[in-house]
């Protein structure tokens, strides 16, 4: 059994992992940057190690430094959280080489799904449908691909993630310039200029399947809908994905399991699909080989602690759950509370949180590392917490979320809570099943 767990992350996910580990009797060691020494996760961990200065490149993203800190602390396992080094195969290999367990998939799985083109080939090999398109090494090849996909189309960085480097092109005359820009941006952001071109599904929904695998067997924990996004960044997530006919919904879940089985996936992962909002045809997009920000909505409707599952599987145990043991109940919604002023084009709002009055009550869960007086440093992403509600059904959950947001009282920094109030009151959201263009139609401010 894992006895001392090193947590190679920060913020709410570090705290989330600490809570489950402590409940399981596992000692926690947190690696922190200088900016996070006084953070709530640093208070809650059993011990802490300073990784380095505030910039991520010299702390949370420094593979050698993190591995050495974990090894020196005597950890027998490393939980990478999400983002940072969570899907870095070199990191996973270095953790294993230092004699520790990487709480995540095998490095070869990270290789297989970390690159979008490889992931696409793996998806095809597993028998999953994919969006028409393919790699384009230069503008001429992009033009040929565009003839296959038609317009509008999307240009994506092969090594990209989290929506960075994605461009939509509506007209052939814009293609060359956009490809050149996408390749330059991909090179700058990911050190890899390769891009690919794919058909843009006009009314697409982003639906994902939570899977768990032990290398031999794999199960699903249902779907999540993450269609409400701004610039490809998720804002609101819910489980299960609403309004999808049961035969298509089942096909989605089965496809997620099929991919996990095909690659002998170990751990918790998410298989992402683009679902046509009208026909409910679906296409495999990519697999996220880690815990995700939005995992609590799945926990809320299944009662399964996904971090616990990750730790048990990492320990080498066969899947603790069989598919028929996973029961679904109710509907859950999560909103991401970011330190941003949405009325000023989502301008970042770092600083000190004078008052952190999070909502409380039945069916409400808060995953946050921010308490009154807490500090939001300017070096990292703007997520200060997640508000998750569970209701008997979707209508109940939407109403509960609206009430919770009304009660929420955070001051000192700007947050996206007012935007979420607007979303909860939007008739399109109340009806359910919105596509990824939802945010464009939301009146600002």
């Amino acid at each position, binding site marked *: 059994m894992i006895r001392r767990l090193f947590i190679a992350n920060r913020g709410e996910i570090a705290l989330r992992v600490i809570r489950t580990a402590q409940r399981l009797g596992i000692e926690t060691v947190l690696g922190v940057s200088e900016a996070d020494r006084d953070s709530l996760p640093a208070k809650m961990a059993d011990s802490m190690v300073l990784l380095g200065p505030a910039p991520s490149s010299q702390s949370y993203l420094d593979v050698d430094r993190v591995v050495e800190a974990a090894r*020196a602390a005597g950890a027998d396992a490393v939980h990478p959280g999400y983002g940072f080094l969570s899907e870095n195969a070199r990191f996973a290999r270095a953790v294993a080489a230092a004699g520790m367990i990487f709480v995540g998939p095998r490095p070869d799985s990270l290789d297989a799904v970390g690159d979008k083109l490889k992931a696409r080939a793996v998806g095809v090999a597993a028998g999953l449908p994919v969006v028409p398109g393919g790699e384009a090494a230069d503008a001429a090849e992009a033009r040929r691909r565009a003839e296959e996909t038609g317009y509008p189309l999307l240009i994506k960085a092969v090594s990209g993630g989290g929506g960075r480097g994605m461009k939509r092109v509506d007209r052939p005359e814009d293609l060359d310039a956009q490809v050149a820009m996408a390749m330059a941006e991909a090179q700058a952001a990911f050190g890899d200029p390769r891009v690919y071109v794919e058909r843009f599904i006009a009314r697409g929904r982003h639906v994902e399947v939570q899977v768990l695998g032990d290398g031999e067997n794999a199960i699903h924990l249902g779907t999540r809908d993450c269609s409400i996004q701004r610039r490809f960044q998720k804002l609101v997530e819910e489980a299960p994905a609403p309004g999808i006919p049961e035969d298509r919904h089942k096909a989605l879940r089965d496809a997620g399991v099929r991919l996990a089985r095909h690659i002998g996936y170990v751990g918790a992962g998410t298989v992402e699909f683009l679902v046509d909002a009208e026909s409910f045809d679906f296409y495999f997009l990519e697999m996220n080989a880690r815990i995700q920000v939005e995992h609590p909505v799945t926990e809320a409707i299944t009662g399964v602690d996904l971090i616990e599952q990750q730790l048990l599987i990492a320990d080498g145990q066969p899947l603790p759950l069989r598919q028929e043991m996973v029961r679904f109940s109710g509907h859950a919604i999560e909103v991401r509370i970011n330190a941003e002023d949405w009325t000023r084009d989502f301008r970042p709002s770092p600083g000190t949180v004078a008052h952190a009055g999070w909502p409380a009550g039945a069916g409400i869960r808060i995953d946050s590392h921010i308490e009154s007086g807490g500090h939001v440093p300017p070096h990292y992403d703007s997520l200060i917490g997640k508000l998750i509600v569970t209701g008997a059904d979707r209508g109940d959950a939407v109403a509960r979320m609206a009430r*919770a947001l009304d009660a929420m009282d955070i001051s000192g920094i700007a947050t996206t809570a007012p935007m979420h109030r607007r979303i909860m009151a939007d008739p399109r959201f109340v009806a359910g099943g919105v596509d990824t263009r939802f945010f464009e139609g939301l009146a600002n401010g």
Partner: protein
Amino acid sequence: MSTTTDLPLELEDVAQIVAILDGSPYQRLEIATDRLTLKLARGEDGGWTQQWHHQGETAPAANAAAPSPAGNTAATATAQEEEEADDGLAVIRPPLPGTFYRAPQPGAPPFVEIGSRVEPETVVAIVETMKLMNPVHAGVSGEIAAILPANGEMIDADAVLMRVRADS
């Protein structure tokens, strides 16, 4: 109502406590244990909020020696020290606190050098805040007279980034 005990209060218990309070006349509850102070308050519309304060010091350092950080915690350029040297030049301040960069990407030429001509809309630098790149505009017409922070330095929102010999 206020009480101090060492009972094992967990944040998971908050929903149940609120359910009990909901049927009571209480508007506020403060519970303090050795580890956690929890404050619950009923809002005007009946919704409850929770505030926590986790007691105790930051966790102790792990027993093994921590790797030494690079030790180059970037000094923060503060407004005061720059203000004293004020010599009638216009100043450029950042839109937000963050990391100051003189060029759009590593290896690229800087946006401006000392002596560069700028107009109010000229982008003279970028400040990275929360993974977003925010352009810094000159705000005045003139000539760059000084560039204060080093590339990659952390700067406060009130820092002076550059001085400009404004057109008269």
